[in-house]
């Protein structure tokens, strides 16, 4: 497999940021009471990840290593401001739902972690592939977590009614408790699956 495709693939499962590396927990837990909120947060993170990955990969040889972290943070914070203003202008309801968790993408450890560990050391194409892989891996984890919580909490998924009006809705799934416990179970499930497929020896 060519290197950029490998860089892309690893974020999807093997090094999934939310479920394997346990990074970016605040948005993962905070906005996933509905699937669509998880999708919006995932896409916003994907955008910031790719855009700052491009910039940092391009200027990686110009930044003195002593001040690299502040430089990364400023680049990331600028793109978060872009995403924030974009959502406020075109999806103002979603902007209200995400609240402070959208600006908090600035300190999302996934983004700074990828900049430090990958984009600052690799050429443009690989960095873009890595950013897309990590972003999409993060997004599917958020959408899955949001779908499970929405299904049990409201009886719907992406606003589509699946369980009819007889379903009273599990209050605990809408509360923070539901977020913690569902994510705990998802990570445990992921551990079980990985344990099962290990003997077949993929990579």
């Amino acid at each position, binding site marked *: 497999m060519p290197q950029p495709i490998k860089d892309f693939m690893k974020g999807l499962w093997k090094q999934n940021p939310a479920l394997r590396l*346990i990074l970016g*927990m*605040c948005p993962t*837990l905070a906005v996933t009471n509905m699937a669509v909120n998880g999708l919006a947060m995932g896409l916003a993170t994907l955008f910031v990840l790719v855009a700052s990955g491009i910039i940092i990969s391009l200027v990686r040889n110009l930044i003195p290593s002593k001040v690299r*972290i502040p430089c990364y943070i400023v680049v990331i914070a600028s793109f978060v401001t872009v995403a924030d203003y974009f959502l406020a202008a075109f999806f103002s309801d979603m902007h209200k739902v995400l609240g402070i968790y959208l600006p*908090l993408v600035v*300190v999302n450890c996934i983004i700074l972690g990828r900049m430090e560990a990958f984009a600052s050391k690799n050429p443009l194409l690989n960095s873009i592939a890595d950013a897309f892989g990590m972003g999409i891996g993060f997004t599917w984890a958020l959408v899955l977590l949001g779908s499970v919580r929405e299904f049990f909490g409201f009886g719907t998924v992406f606003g589509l009614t699946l369980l009819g009006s007889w379903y009273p809705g599990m209050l605990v799934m809408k509360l923070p408790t539901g977020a913690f416990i569902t994510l*705990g179970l998802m990570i445990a*499930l992921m551990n*079980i699956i990985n344990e099962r497929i290990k003997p077949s020896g993929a990579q």
Partner: protein
Amino acid sequence: MSNLITIFIAAAFVNNFVFYRFLGICPFLGISRHIKSAVSMGAAVTFVMVISGVSTWLIQNFVLDRFGLPFLKYPAFILVIASLVQLIEMFLKRYHSDIYKTFGIYLPLITTNCAILGLALLNSILKYNFTESFVYSVGAGFGFTLALIIMAGIRERLEIAPVPKPFQNIPIALIIAGLLALAFSGFASLSLG
């Protein structure tokens, strides 16, 4: 005065940073294994929270609002926090090396702790005045420390418990956090003025 007490209790218990706002989860899961390190981390976070809460309030009111630069809010806040953490680290290393030994290693981690930036953003969204921001920062730091210590106490006992293999470490910690969050949601029924 009673208004300030309300703000403190809301920040520390009702809207606890870890269990209600999901802020500072990474150190919460990473550090909270022993009560001793939980106390040091909590103290370090509270310290930085109060100083950065107050300084971002000053930046917001005397620079950003005054000169009409709302779009510079996130870069400005995060840079202030990052440089403050660096300054505190240098100051402690030079003048209080015993304190530095206790929580110095946690300081660099704090820059990317979302609880700090989250607090600055909440202060600016809730439109608190200077005193209120200060009290809110202290309350938030206290609540964070409390959460860390409770969690560490449970996890110290968990080390001798037979946890099923797939649940070891992070999954069981998340499930315990869920149950603690359920307990903390009881505070929501406190009627605050």
